[in-house]
């Protein structure tokens, strides 16, 4: 892809992006997307949540996975940062703790792509913050 320098460039890129997205089914419906929320309070940032969030963005972009990556606040698991919440379409959200790059890659390859559970899930009846 060409470099995006200005808003005009972004407008041009948008058409290319749109054609890529519209090839996939139900892309307008956020429920059909994989949602990843990265806990980014002081504790998360200090443990490298920013790098993990970047990693997910890079991987989803390069592998063309239908997903949105957003930030969230502290989920209360400061001891297990970086913490992420993954919601697969039609599934309940799962929280993974101590997410390193290799754990993130495992989560993408096994859980997000295959639906197979991986170690590191924080088992709790917790509710999404924000």
């Amino acid at each position, binding site marked *: 892809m060409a*470099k*995006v*320098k*200005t*808003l005009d*460039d*972004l*407008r041009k*890129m*948008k058409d290319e*992006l*749109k054609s*890529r*997205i519209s090839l996939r089914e139900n892309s307008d419906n*956020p429920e059909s997307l994989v949602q990843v929320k*990265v806990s*980014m*309070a*002081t*504790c998360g*940032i*200090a443990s490298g949540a*920013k790098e993990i*969030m*970047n990693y*997910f*963005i*890079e991987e*989803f*972009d390069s592998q063309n996975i239908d*997903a*949105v*990556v*957003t*930030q969230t*606040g*502290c*989920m*209360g698991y*400061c001891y297990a940062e970086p913490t992420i919440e993954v919601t697969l379409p039609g599934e309940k959200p799962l929280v993974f703790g101590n997410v390193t790059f290799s754990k993130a890659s495992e989560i993408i390859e096994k859980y997000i792509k295959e639906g197979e559970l991986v170690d590191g899930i924080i088992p709790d009846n917790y509710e999404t*913050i*924000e």
Partner: protein
Amino acid sequence: MKDLAMHIIDITRNSVRAGASLIGIRLDVYKTEKLLKMTIKDNGCGMDSEMILRVTDPFVTSRTTRKVGLGLPFLKMNAEQTGGALSIQSQPGEGTVVTATFDYSHIDCVPLGDIQGTVALIMSGNPNQDFEFEICKDESVFALKSTEIKDALDGISIANPSVAKMIAEMVDTNLLSDLQ
């Protein structure tokens, strides 16, 4: 916090939690005074004067998931160790302005960090809030508004990973490289 970019993510999260819909992030670089000023302004719920005095206490937080709140105390520490200062202006219902000044020639000043990636993560990671990012150095100003990006995207979610990468590129190519 290892760099200023991390503080920006941290303090803007406070604004998001305060229910803000519009958050301004501004960096001013004053070359002659070797002064860096970071301003984060929101239209969230704000706080009263008593709370302003207490927020830089690490054991004060409004959240219930834990008992400590280190974001502002860390920012205060990093600003003050360069001879700078932290100031907070707020009115309940009006929003909050957090200003931190740094002497960037001071040996204890934290680096600027990955500003471009941070701006992208903040804008893309909080699709329901709008952000205005400005960086001013002497005469030159670079400004980017997430509302403009959303308009340009014409329906594509700003939280799309490809969009996050584009925003980072956009800030990167426009950001003054000699700022560090």
